[in-house]
C-alpha cells in the first residue's frame, strides 16, 4: 500500500467514524430517517411496478407533489448564496465561519431535488437520454435541458468548494485563495441563474397563464431567499444545541434580517400579481380564483393557500419587528411559519393551479395519493440524512476532531481580528552570526530599522540583534553610563549580561521572541508588554523569518479595529 493510499484510507475511516458515531439522540434521529427512507423506497418499488398510476396525477394535472417539492428545493439550494455574499463580498466573519453549512445544504437540496425529478419520470432508467454526449439534450430550445445543466453545475460548484476547503482544513493547510475564490464568486450568479432557469421551465409555457407571468422568476428568487435562510436558521440552532460547534447570534441575526427584506419583496410581488389578475379579470384569472376562492365549486387548495398566506404574513411581522426577530422563541416560530408557508405557496400552490382549469377548461382536482406522500417523505428523509452526515463531517473537520495526523495542531481561530500575517512588514533583512557589528550598524542605518534577525545557514532564526544590543556593547566598559542609561535603552532581560565581541552572533539576544503567521493580535501584544521588547519576528513552520511586527504595527492595527 502506498503512502497516499494509506492516507486516503485513514481519511475515509476517520470520516466514517465522525459521521456515524454519536449519542443516543443521533441514533434515534438516524433511525427515524432510515425508517422513512425505507418506507419511501418500498413505495417507489410499487410505483416502479405499477407505474405513476399509483399517484393522483392524471392527464389534466400531469405534475403534482414531486415537481412541487422539486421546485421548492431548488429554491432552498439557491439560498446558499445568501451566506456566500456576506461572507466573501463583505468579509462578515461570523457568517464566513458557517458558510460551509450553506454549501452543504445546497448540495443536499440539489440531490434531493434531482431525486424528486427521478421519482416523477415515467421512464427513469432512460435519464441518460438527457445527458450531453450520451443522450440528446434538446439545446438550445428546451429550458428543462438547460435546467439540468445549471442544476448539476451548481451541485458541482458547491461540492467542489465544500470538499476543497474541507480537505485543506483536514490537512491543516490554508485553501489556495486564487483557486477557490473565483469558484466561490462564480457560485453567486450561478445561484440566481439556477432559480431563474427553473422558473423559466414553467414561465415559458404560453398554454398555462398562471405560470406565464413575467413576475414568476423574481417571485421565485424572493421566496427562495425567505425559505432557504429560514431553514438555515433552524438548522444552525439545532447544530448549536446538539454539537459543540459555536454559531454566533449575529450570524443568525443577519440571516433574519435578510428574511425580513425577502419576505417583504415576496409579499409585494404576490400582491402585484393578484391585482393584475383580479382587476383585469380575464380568463387568465381562473387558476388564481381556483387557488384563492375555489372555482365552480372546486376548492381543495383554498385552505392550503390561506394557511400559507397567514403563515407568511405572521412570519413577516415576526421578522420585521426587531424585538421578535431577536428573541429566539419568536424567531424560531417565524422560521417555521415561513418555511411551511413558502413550501405550500411555491410547491402545490404554484404547480397545481397551473393545470386547473386545464387547457380545455376541465377541472380535475388533485391531491397527492398516499403513496406519493410516502415516497416524497422518503426523499425528504434522504435529504435530511445526507445533510446530517455532511454537517457532522464539516463540524468534525472544523473542530479539529477529523484531522490528518501530520497536520499542524488546529489554530484556535475563535477570535476575530487581524493576525500576524495581516499586519507584519514583510521586508525582512537578515544577517548571519558571522556578520561584523560594523556591517550590521550600516544595515540598520541604511534601511532605517532598529533590529535585525540573525539566522543560521539554513535560514532559521537563532536570535535578534537590535540597536540596544549595539549600544550596550559600546558602553558596557563604562559602568556609569550603563547605570545612567540602562533603564532607558536596554531590554531588562539582558541587562545583567556582559556583552562583548565583534560579530552579530556574539552580542545578539537569543533566543529571539517569535510568533507564527496565524498568531492573533492578542498573542502579539502579550510578549511586548510582558517582556518589554520592541518587535516580534514572525516565522513560518520551519522557523524561518517571514516578517516583523513592531510596536507601531500593533498600534496601527488597534487603530483599525477601534477607530
Amino acid at each position, binding site marked *: 500500500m502506498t503512502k497516499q493510499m494509506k492516507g486516503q484510507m485513514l481519511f475515509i475511516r476517520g470520516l466514517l467514524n465522525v459521521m456515524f458515531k454519536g449519542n443516543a439522540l443521533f441514533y434515534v434521529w438516524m433511525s427515524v430517517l432510515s425508517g422513512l427512507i425505507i418506507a419511501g423506497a418500498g413505495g417507489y418499488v410499487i410505483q416502479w*411496478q405499477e407505474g405513476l398510476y399509483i399517484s393522483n396525477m392524471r392527464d389534466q394535472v*400531469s405534475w403534482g407533489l414531486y415537481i412541487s417539492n422539486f421546485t421548492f428545493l431548488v429554491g432552498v439550494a439557491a439560498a446558499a448564496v445568501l451566506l456566500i455574499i456576506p461572507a466573501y463580498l463583505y468579509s462578515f466573519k461570523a457568517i464566513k465561519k458557517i458558510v460551509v453549512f450553506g454549501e452543504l445544504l445546497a448540495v443536499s437540496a440539489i440531490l434531493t431535488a434531482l431525486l424528486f425529478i427521478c421519482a416523477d419520470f415515467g421512464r427513469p432508467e432512460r435519464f441518460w*437520454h438527457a445527458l450531453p454526449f450520451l443522450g440528446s439534450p434538446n439545446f438550445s430550445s428546451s429550458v428543462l435541458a438547460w435546467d439540468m445543466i445549471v442544476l448539476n453545475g451548481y451541485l458541482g460548484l458547491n461540492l467542489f468548494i465544500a470538499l476543497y476547503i474541507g480537505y485543506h482544513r483536514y490537512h491543516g493547510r490554508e485553501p489556495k485563495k486564487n483557486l477557490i475564490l473565483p469558484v466561490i464568486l462564480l457560485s453567486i450568479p450561478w445561484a440566481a441563474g439556477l432559480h431563474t432557469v427553473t422558473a423559466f421551465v414553467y414561465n415559458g409555457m404560453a398554454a398555462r397563464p398562471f405560470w406565464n407571468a413575467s413576475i414568476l422568476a423574481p417571485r421565485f428568487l424572493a421566496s427562495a431567499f425567505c425559505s432557504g435562510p429560514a431553514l438555515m436558521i433552524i438548522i444552525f440552532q439545532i447544530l448549536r444545541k446538539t454539537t459543540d460547534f459555536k454559531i454566533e447570534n449575529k450570524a443568525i441575526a443577519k440571516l433574519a434580517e435578510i428574511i425580513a427584506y425577502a419576505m417583504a419583496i415576496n409579499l409585494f410581488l404576490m400582491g402585484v400579481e393578484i391585482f393584475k389578475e383580479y382587476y383585469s379579470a380575464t380568463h387568465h384569472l381562473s387558476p388564481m380564483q381556483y387557488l384563492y376562492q375555489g372555482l365552480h365549486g372546486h376548492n381543495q387548495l383554498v385552505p392550503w393557500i390561506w394557511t400559507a398566506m397567514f403563515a407568511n404574513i405572521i412570519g413577516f411581522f415576526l421578522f420585521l419587528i426587531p424585538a421578535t426577530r431577536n428573541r429566539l422563541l419568536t424567531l424560531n416560530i417565524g422560521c417555521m411559519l415561513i418555511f411551511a408557508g413558502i413550501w405550500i405557496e411555491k410547491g402545490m400552490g404554484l404547480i397545481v393551479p397551473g393545470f386547473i382549469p386545464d387547457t380545455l377548461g376541465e377541472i380535475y382536482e388533485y391531491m397527492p395519493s398516499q403513496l406519493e406522500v410516502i415516497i416524497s417523505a422518503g426523499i425528504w428523509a434522504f435529504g435530511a440524512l445526507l445533510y446530517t452526515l455532511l454537517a457532522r463531517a464539516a463540524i468534525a473537520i472544523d473542530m479539529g476532531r477529523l484531522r490528518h495526523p501530520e497536520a499542524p495542531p488546529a489554530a484556535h481561530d475563535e477570535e476575530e481580528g487581524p493576525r500576524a500575517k495581516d499586519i507584519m512588514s514583510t521586508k525582512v533583512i537578515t544577517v548571519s552570526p558571522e556578520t561584523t557589528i560594523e556591517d550590521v550598524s550600516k544595515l540598520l542605518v541604511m534601511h532605517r530599522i532598529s533590529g535585525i534577525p540573525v539566522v543560521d545557514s539554513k535560514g532559521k532564526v537563532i536570535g535578534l540583534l537590535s540597536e540596544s544590543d549595539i549600544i550596550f556593547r559600546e558602553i558596557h566598559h563604562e559602568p556609569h553610563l550603563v547605570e545612567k542609561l540602562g533603564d532607558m535603552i536596554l531590554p531588562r532581560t539582558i541587562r545583567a549580561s556582559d556583552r562583548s565581541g565583534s560579530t552579530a552572533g556574539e552580542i545578539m539576544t537569543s533566543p529571539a521572541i517569535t510568533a507564527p503567521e496565524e498568531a492573533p493580535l492578542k498573542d502579539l501584544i502579550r510578549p511586548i508588554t510582558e517582556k518589554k521588547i520592541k518587535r516580534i519576528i514572525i516565522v513560518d513552520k520551519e522557523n524561518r523569518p517571514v516578517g516583523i511586527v513592531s510596536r507601531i504595527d500593533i498600534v496601527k492595527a488597534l487603530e483599525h479595529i477601534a477607530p
Partner: protein
Amino acid sequence: MRKNLSRRSFLKISAAGLCASALAGCSKWVPDSEFFGKKFTEMSPQEVQETLRRLEEKYTKKFGLPFSVTAEPPRENTVFGYGLDLSRCIGCRRCVHACVRENNPSRNTEIQWIRVLKMNKGGFDLEQADQYYSPEQVPEEGHFYLPVQCQQCENPPCVKVCPVQATWKDADGIVVIDYDWCIGCRTCMAACPYRARKFNWKEPAIPKEELNPRTHYLGNRPRMRGVVEKCTFCIQRTREGRYPACVEVCPVGARKFGNLLDPKSEIRYILDNFRVFRLKEELHTEPKFYYFFSLGA
C-alpha cells in the same frame, strides 16, 4: 460496546432494507437492446430495419398475432392539413372510437386521442364545456360540439420543451414521438395548449381482438408504461395515401383531410372557400387543424 452494537445493527437493518427494495425494484427490469438503443432519428437505414424487425418479432410473440411495424417516411411535397366542420358535427364520438380501434391506445386507462367538447350555443367558453356528456341522443338542444385532437402545430410548443428531443415535427407536418426515447417527464403535456398529449400512467392493456397489428414506428405501435402519446393524423394510414380513421368514420362528413401543398386537395378547397379559424391562434402555435362552418342555420 452497547453503542457499537446498536450502531451496527442499525446499519445492518437499513442496508438490508435498501438492498431488498432495490432488488425487488429491479427484478422486473433488465437492461436490454431497447434500453441501449439509439434515438430513431439517429439510426442508419439498416438500423431502422433491424429495429422494425425486432419490434415485429417482439409484438408478435407478446400479443400472439402477426404484427407489421413500418417506418414509412414523409411523402415528397406533402404537408397534411385537417378540416373540421363545426356546423355538421353532431357529437356522436364515432371518431373517438374509430381512433381507439385504429391506434392501439391503452384500454385500462381509457386513453383517447380525440376529445369532444359539448359547448353552449352563444359562446365559445371552454370552461363551460362538458367532455363527459352521455345523453340518449345527440345532438342536444342548445349545444354544439367541438372535437379537439393534436393540432399538428407548425410551431409546436411540445417539441420546443422536450428535454431529450424525443418528439419532433416531420417533413409532412406531423408531430411524432419516439416512444423508445421518451423519458416520461410530461413537460410536453404541460406545454400543449390543446391537451392533445396523453400519458401511459400504467402498463397499457388492450384486448387481443381489438389490437390493430398494422402499425407505424412513430404512430400506432404498442406503447409502454410511462411514455407520452398523441394523435399522429393516423401516420400509418396517411403516409400510404389513405384517410385517417376519424375522417373515414364520420357519419356526417364533418371531417376533411388532405395535402395543404396540393391546390386541388379537399383541405385547400375548404381554406379557399370557407371562413376558417384555428384554436387559440393568439398563442402562435399555427395549427394545421382548421375549424370551419359549411352550413348556415
